[in-house]
């Protein structure tokens, strides 16, 4: 684990200072240990062939965790379980010492397909989230808050536009602003840049990194992009697929959790000059290729 994660608490508290307590946050039944704990998570549709079993990991406050794996390994299922949108077959998720059992405003989700309401403008989309979080805020408070977060992602000029008038990158920015606007304790990102072109992707990665650093947000993110993971994550979880060779069945799960050894303040343009970058990258790519070979062998 990286050192900077422990020094983040001050800023995190500061961000939360003016947000009213929700159902979870007044509980201080904080167990010793980690902010988010995932214990023995498994998911199966038929009991003999689980998609994954025994998934354990922890996320500390202010940590950025990426999860990488091939399609079908259950990344999205894990994220949905963390979000409370899906249930695991076995295992538990604890956040802030309380079990996660259903969706909550404590966890903001950025969906792969941005999931903006097309009948709302950018302003209304974010205001919808803000009003859900603080139902008793008046019009002016909501307006100010919305504008602050739209400005944060640099879309102030598009406040009154409908999502259909925005480019893919802009839509995803609005999705990110919406997730941040409710001051979640944790942010869940389901491959948010998957549908974007490389240039836009780079820009938004930088923006996201900047915002996350400023707000000391705890983030869990799915990605397919190794460089993206290296750039953003403090910790990278590598997932392996289930292997079915006819006779024997090995369920999927976590293959390895890699701590990112690179210096905290990474810049995309200098990333590949950093010491240790290629070792890390090769390690992850080798894992992914190895996993592909394995699954190819199984089909032959």
């Amino acid at each position, binding site marked *: 684990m990286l050192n900077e994660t422990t020094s983040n608490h001050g800023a995190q508290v500061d961000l939360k200072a003016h947000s009213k307590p929700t159902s979870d946050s007044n509980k201080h039944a904080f167990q010793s240990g980690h902010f988010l704990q995932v214990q023995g998570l498994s998911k199966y549709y038929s009991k003999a062939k689980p998609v994954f079993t025994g998934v354990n990991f922890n996320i500390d406050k202010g940590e950025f965790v990426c999860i990488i794996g091939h399609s079908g390994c259950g990344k999205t299922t894990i994220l949905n379980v963390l979000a409370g949108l899906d249930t695991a077959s076995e295992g538990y998720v604890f956040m802030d010492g309380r079990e996660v059992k259903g969706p909550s405003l404590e966890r903001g*989700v950025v969906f792969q397909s941005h999931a903006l309401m*097309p*009948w709302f403008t950018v302003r209304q989309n974010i205001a*919808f989230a803000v009003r859900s979080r603080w139902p008793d805020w008046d019009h002016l408070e909501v307006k100010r808050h919305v504008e602050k977060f739209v400005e944060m992602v640099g879309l102030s000029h598009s406040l009154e536009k409908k999502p259909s008038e925005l480019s893919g990158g802009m839509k995803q920015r609005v999705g990110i602003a919406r997730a941040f606007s409710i001051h979640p304790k944790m942010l869940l990102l389901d491959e948010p840049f998957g549908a974007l072109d490389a240039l836009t992707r780079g820009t938004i990665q930088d923006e996201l990194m900047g915002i996350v650093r400023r707000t000391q947000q705890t983030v869990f993110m799915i990605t397919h992009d190794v460089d993206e993971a290296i750039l953003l994550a403090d910790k990278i979880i590598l997932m392996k697929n289930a292997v079915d060779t006819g006779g024997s069945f090995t369920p999927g799960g976590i293959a390895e959790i890699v701590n990112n050894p690179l210096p905290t303040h990474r810049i995309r343009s200098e990333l590949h000059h950093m010491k240790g970058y290629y070792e890390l990258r090769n390690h992850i790519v080798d894992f992914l290729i190895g996993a592909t070979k394995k699954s190819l062998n199984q089909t032959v």
Partner: protein
Amino acid sequence: MISVRLKAKVLSLLIFVVFLGIWHVSTFTPSGVGVLGSGSSAMTAEQLEYQKLMGKDIGTQKSTGFPSPDQMSKAIAKQLSDPFYDNGPNDKGIAIQLGYSLLRVGLGFFLAALVAIPFGFAIGMSPLLFSAFDPFIQILKPISPLAWMPLALYTIKDSSLSGIFVIFICSVWPMLINTAFGVSSVKKEWLNVASTLEVSPLRKAFLVILPAAAPTILTGMRISMGIAWLVIVAAEMLVGGTGIGYFLWNEWNNLSLTSVIFAILLIGIVGMLLDTCFAQFQKWVTYVE
């Protein structure tokens, strides 16, 4: 684009003119030529009387054939010049008759929407309710609304209310089915957004599901309105009293073909206007993804 539109307009006009021309030529009778031709002047008074008794009135220029465009335009002008007169139950101005029809359609349609949209919402949200009600809807839907008329007349015992009931029953199905379909096919991701934001059920219904399903619901309403306008004419012919359908049937009994054609034309125009209204509403609620 504009040139195509302009061309279409010109072509439409041309088709109309050609239609009028054919109509004019096929109904043209040279003036002064009566049924019996010019030979009538040679007849004696007794012979004329005899012809009258035989139903062949020579003195008056009576047209028994299909009205010509000229006669039609005169009839239309006459009807439109005083649309609001009321000379008793069988002789009312065309605007009054249309008003009655529109009132019935409006009332029946409104009641149907009041029932179908909330109920469709419930069915669309719950797969259980959907499956439970589906067989009833499937059986009730294909019944011609006029088939309900005897039952309606017997139970309601009022012809005007029965008309409204028939409109209600024919408007209810498309709205119900479309609402249920629209609500059940709201994108999962929007519902997920709503649940991660812990949105209350009522807010979710009005701010997420309703706008998401609105285009489909409005399509149902547009279909319903179309059917209701078709059915009101037939229903009013049956129950009588007032309305454009009754007017049409009454004029048929009067053998006034000009009035019948006028009524047909009017039914078409009003139907088109109603549809245009709903097309506009549809435009308002449609969103681009």
